[in-house]
């Protein structure tokens, strides 16, 4: 429980840094902090494999790409941080509504018929892998198409620029 509160605290701090810091490099580092805490949370929630892959994919690859782009474009810290005032207020209201709604729906009693005890190997890497490769073959194969499109798209866009 203490572990959860520490995780939650750092995750929220990281998220606020992402949203509020003027310097995009700090935003990216705040994102790393949050993502790392989410990984720890996964480990707490019986998903050890996802925790490690989260660090590898998000922290190790995606945010590195962000940092790379920020640094190579040598972006300045923004002078005008935010949208005009009404938009900011609208955003705040939207966020508050969303957050409130999600909290309410999240804390509603879950439907009955839930197994009260998890199987012993729940969340083990083996069970995740078995589920992925025996019950979700089609999404898995489609993923490769998605990645193919992404790589081709990136190349086409980047080459058009030069």
């Amino acid at each position, binding site marked *: 429980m203490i572990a959860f509160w520490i995780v939650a605290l750092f995750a929220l701090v990281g998220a606020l840094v992402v949203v509020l810091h003027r310097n995009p490099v700090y935003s990216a580092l705040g994102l790393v902090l949050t993502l790392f805490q989410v990984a720890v949370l996964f480990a707490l929630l019986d998903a050890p494999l996802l925790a490690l892959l989260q660090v590898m994919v998000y922290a190790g690859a995606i945010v590195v790409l962000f940092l790379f*782009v920020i640094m190579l474009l*040598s972006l300045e810290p923004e002078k005008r941080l935010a949208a005009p005032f009404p938009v900011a207020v609208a955003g705040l209201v939207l966020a508050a509504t969303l957050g409130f709604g999600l909290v309410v729906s999240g804390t509603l009693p879950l439907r009955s018929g839930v197994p009260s005890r998890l199987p012993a190997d729940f969340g083990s890497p083996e069970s995740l892998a078995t589920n992925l490769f025996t019950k979700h073959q089609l999404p898995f*194969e489609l993923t490769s198409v998605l*990645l193919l499109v992404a*790589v*081709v798209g990136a*190349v086409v866009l*980047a*080459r058009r620029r030069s």
Partner: protein
Amino acid sequence: MEPYAALMASFVLCGIVAAVMVCASWILGPKNPTPTKLEIFETGNPPMGSLRGMRFPVKFYLVAIFFVVFDVEVVFLYPWALIFRQLGWAGLVEMAIFMAILGAGLAYVWQVGALEWD
């Protein structure tokens, strides 16, 4: 002790030692800053202008983008490798299709010369 608790303890220990090592000079060393010392090193010349505004060739971004895509591909390989014996030939075919599609991506990237660093 739980393995994860041990890991956390390890993080804490390493973090403390690393912090002490990083700060050692600041604590132990002399503090005698002069304007020249605090300048950025450019082989003895006065630094010319700011770094900000310097631009880089597009190849660097492309490498990072390819890395993200192929890293995700490898991420799918780990669980597959773990239970490969249970999956048998079906698993091999499954992964072969996946790899073939991504292999086409690699071939395309190679073909258009996005991997060249002339």
